[in-house]
């Protein structure tokens, strides 16, 4: 099956007179790591909310994981994962309870949840931490756990909303190893970020400015097109 994971045509979202997303179109290929860049207020979050089935577009159409963004929001939700740096775990629940909760709300069976819990704790080497409150974990662990939990139902696409805010480069690098692993297993990764070194890790990158997509290509081609040494420069040239 050779469809794109995300296909968006002429997507527009208005809040009253304000146009947050202005007629954007793009595709995300299956298994690709797609970087979604833009300054604060450029419309990233609004666009992402529509793709996640949290919000309806004012105009335009598209599919996510093969389901219509206008009519099949519930189906979309079932087939995507979502993780945000802001907070993706409940701090007053233990590691195991967090896993249980998300397994539960994504409709996994009890047996599946038990298996997933063991597999996940083993993979993260967190067996001895399973009864610790999630709030007391170091930030790096929280992010890995949150990512694994967002993947608990084996989604086709995972949306990462600034997943690595506030951590050191080393932790960030290790987090990206997890992202690569997921991508190699065929999961499409849709990631927004502030860090331009992370943009380099993506297969393709789009840059949003004032509700429009100002550029969309692989980091290498963007760099050569704008005559820049790194993505940071590319971003500055485009946003300016």
């Amino acid at each position, binding site marked *: 099956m050779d469809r794109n994971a995300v296909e968006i045509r002429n997507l527009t979202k208005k809040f009253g007179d304000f146009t947050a997303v202005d007629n954007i179109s793009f595709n995300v290929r299956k298994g690709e790591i797609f970087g979604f860049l833009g300054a604060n207020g450029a419309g990233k979050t609004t666009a992402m909310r529509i793709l*996640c*089935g*949290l*919000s*309806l577009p004012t105009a335009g159409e598209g599919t996510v994981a093969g389901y219509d963004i206008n009519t099949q929001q*519930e189906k979309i*939700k*079932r087939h*995507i994962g*979502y993780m*945000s740096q*802001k*907070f*993706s775990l*409940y701090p*007053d*629940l233990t590691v195991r*309870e967090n896993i*249980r*909760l*998300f*397994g*539960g*709300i*994504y*409709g996994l*069976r009890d047996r599946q949840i038990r298996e997933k819990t063991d597999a996940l704790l083993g993979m993260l080497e967190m067996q001895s931490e399973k009864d610790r409150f999630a709030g007391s974990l170091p930030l790096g662990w929280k992010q890995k756990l949150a990512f694994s939990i967002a993947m608990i139902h084996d989604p086709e696409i995972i949306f990462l909303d600034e997943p690595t805010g506030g951590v050191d480069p080393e932790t960030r690098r290790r987090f990206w190893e997890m992202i690569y692993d997921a991508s190699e297993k065929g999961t499409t990764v849709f990631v927004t970020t502030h860090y331009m070194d992370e943009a380099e890790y993506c297969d393709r990158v789009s840059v949003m400015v004032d509700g429009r997509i100002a550029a969309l290509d692989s980091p290498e081609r963007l760099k050569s097109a704008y005559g820049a040494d790194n993505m940071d420069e590319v971003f500055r040239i485009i946003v300016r």
Partner: protein
Amino acid sequence: MKEFTASVVKEFRHIFRDRRTILIAMVMPVVQIILFGFAVSTEVNDVRVAVCGDLADPAVRNLVDRIDNNRYLSVSGSLSSPSEITGVFRRNEADVAVCFGRNFGENLAPSGRAQVRIIGDGSDPNTAQMITGYLKGVIQSEQTDAEVAFAGEGERKASMAPVVQLMYNPAMKSSYNFVPGVMGLILMLICTMMTSVSIVREKETGTLELLLVSPVKPLWIILSKMIPYLVLSAVNFATILLLSHYVMEVPINGSLLLLCFAALVFVVTSLALGLLISVISPNQRTALLICGMGLTMPTMIFSGIIFPCESMPEVLQWFSDIIPAKWFIIIVKKVMIQGTGLVSAAKEMTILAGMAALLLAVSIKSFRTRLQ
């Protein structure tokens, strides 16, 4: 359904993990009942009565004895003239004075027109009102006895004071007043405040997004948040009922089933209100403020715990009409204390049910639009 239970379990965990929440939910009702029951007692107790009149008169003596023998009253002294009353009140030597008219006994026997005045210490109007009311009752019973004594003597009737009969709460027990009030307050606090705060908290931390992006339907997420508080309020309702019945000795005169039904309707109203507040509040502080100023305080004021509603300015009385707790409290008073059935509480019940339906519709609708 599986998804739903998972989120209900989560909500229960949140509640039991947070000491403050548990404290508010489980301890506060008990503390309030005990506090209002013993510390903030406004009931007529150990009332000191100053007597002014001709104690040589047997009819006067009869009545004074009756007052003195009453378990709530005691005669603290006798005055030679009504002009001494002011001084006695000022020195706090008596709470109320009873003045017998001249030739009290003589007037009582032949004409049935004996004069007796009750003078309360108006500096504490609530207490004074209760005391004078209670004294009237005592005098009334003396009058009844006198009538029995005169029976068979034709037209002769004993009359001493305006006939005031205090039904339901002869001792003006304040617990009769505050138990329904506390009930309304607690249920409102648990259902409205705690639900709205718990929803707004998830909005603040961003975890609500996480739930919304999951396949669980938004309405179910909200329901799963409400269920633990519904259970909590059922526990609280039972606690208050048991405490007030066995410790405060407040009777449950009417149907317990009807009482429970009224509580359920009120809880639904409160939950809907909580949802509505959570939709319009951007953060926990706002939600708390709206609940505190907009709900808890008016409930305190209009529940009759502190002030009798009847003595309020008319405008405030109209305002009190839009507060759901007021209607619930009236129903509880009617059913629990007066022992009336559904028919006589039908008006209040209809209003409360109407409020529940309206608030539920509005809050769910606004929650839905908020999501778009």
